[in-house]
Structures are given as structure tokens and as C-alpha cells.
């Protein structure tokens, strides 16, 4: 009989402990959901912002042209000016 009452006590403690642990797991899972949603929103906004990255190709082209013009200008200066 005593053993049975001990089992009752153990089960009560186990039930309380289990409820606390499971509620912790559930709370953690619920806290992840809005974060994932926010990540999706940020990724969508970032992806939209990165649409302008293609303009870097134009920038690269312009810079190549500028440096080519600079090279021509330097070549002219090399001819026009005496060396040190």
C-alpha cells in the first residue's frame, strides 16, 4: 500500500514536470514562427533592393571607358611633357 502511495506522489511530480517542460518547448516553437516570417519579409525586401545590382555592370563599363580615356590622356601627357 505504501508503495502505491509513493507511486502516486511520483506520478504527480512527473506530471507537473512534464507539463512545465512541454510548455517550454511549445513556447520556444511559437517564438520561432514570427522570426521565420520576419526573415521571409526581410529576404523579399533585400531581394527587391538587389535588383539594382545589375547596374554595377554599367558602372563597370563606364569605369573601363574612363580608365581607357585616362590611359589615352596619360599617353598624351607622356608625349607632351618632358621626363623628370
Amino acid at each position, binding site marked *: 500500500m505504501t508503495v502505491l502511495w509513493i507511486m502516486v506522489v511520483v506520478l504527480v511530480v512527473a506530471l507537473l514536470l512534464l*507539463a512545465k517542460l512541454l510548455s517550454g518547448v511549445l513556447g520556444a516553437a511559437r517564438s520561432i514562427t514570427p522570426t521565420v516570417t520576419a526573415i521571409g519579409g526581410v529576404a523579399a525586401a533585400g531581394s527587391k533592393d538587389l535588383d539594382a545590382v545589375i547596374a554595377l*555592370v554599367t558602372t*563597370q563599363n563606364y569605369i573601363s571607358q574612363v580608365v581607357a580615356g585616362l590611359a589615352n590622356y596619360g599617353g598624351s601627357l607622356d608625349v607632351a611633357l*618632358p621626363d*623628370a
Partner: protein
Amino acid sequence: MELPVAIIILLIVLIVLALAVFLLATIAELVKINRGLAAAIPLVGELVSKTAPVNGVLDAINGTLVTGRDLLEGLALKKAGPDGAGLVESCFPGEGAKFLRRVGASGAVLPIGEDYPRGAAILNSLLGGTAPVPAAGSAPAPAPAASGGSPSEAVPGGGRISLRDTPAPAAQEPAEPGRLSAMGARPWESAPAAEAPAEPGRLTAKGARPWER
């Protein structure tokens, strides 16, 4: 049935129920998380695919700019010699020492300042002014312009060139005779007969240098 046994059975049922309720709720949240991640992963993939060529493009841009920088530094070294680091330092403060390191030279960097008399003298000679004294072993300065004008007609006053943007004296006689402003009016396009250079020494390539005093 004895009371403790009934309580045990009741507690076991409660434990199973608690397990079921909490685990089902957790599973539901995990399903939501899975859906959210499934929606976010393609967007992150877009980010990755859109940023993938950036490194290559920026490397190419950097390479092109470094080539241009090396070209200009080589030109400065060839044309200005020991003054090259000072010229670079005057235009881009702090870069003179790096310039020296890149070209494998050493020594103190003396900023030229806003005016580079030797360069002004060379340009002045090209524009019809007095030719600079060439350095030993260097190429002779180009001949004056074939306009036939005197130096004072081409560039009144002997000429100074500014390395930085300076406001142009609009349609007036320059306060300092012969100053060639990078952004200002061009004296050789509109200069009437002008006076002789106020500072003849500025026309000399090897003239007095303020930073050497």
C-alpha cells in the same frame, strides 16, 4: 479497486493527455515554421543568386581602377620624379607614403601644396611661355606654341597651376598674374597683351621651391 490504484490510473491518463496536447501544439507550430522557411528559402536563394556576380564585377572594377591608379602613379613618377609622392600627397592626403611603398621608393613625403611651379613652368612653356630648364638626362621641353606670340601673350605672368579646384576669377584680371586655374577661365583663349611675369622665377623648372625652404 483501491484508491491509490485509481489515482495512479488517473494520473497516467493525465500524463498521456498532457503529452498529447503539448506535442500536438508543438507539431502545429513546427508545421508553421516549416511553411515559413519554405517561403523564405527561395527568397534567400534569390539574394544569393543576385549577389553572386557582385564579387566578380567589383573585382573587375577594382582591377580597372588599380590599373588606372598605377598608370597615373607611373606617369607622376616619370614626369615629376622625386616630386611625385608630394604631388600625390597634395591631391590625396595620406596617399604619398603608400605611393612611395608601391613604387619601391623611400624617403620623406613633402606635400607640394596647391601649386607645382615645375609643372606650371612646363605647361607654361607648352603654351608659349619661357621653356623650363630640363633636368639632366631628360627629354627637352617641347617647343613653344607656334602662334608666334610672346610668352606674356600666351600666359600672362608666367603661370601657376592649381592642383585643387579654385574659384575662377570671372572675367577679371587674375589677382595673381598668370595663375592657371584648373577650373577657371583659360588665359590663352582670351588673354590680351599682358604684362611681363610678375614672378619670373616661377617659370624656371628648377626655381626656388617653397617646400624646400
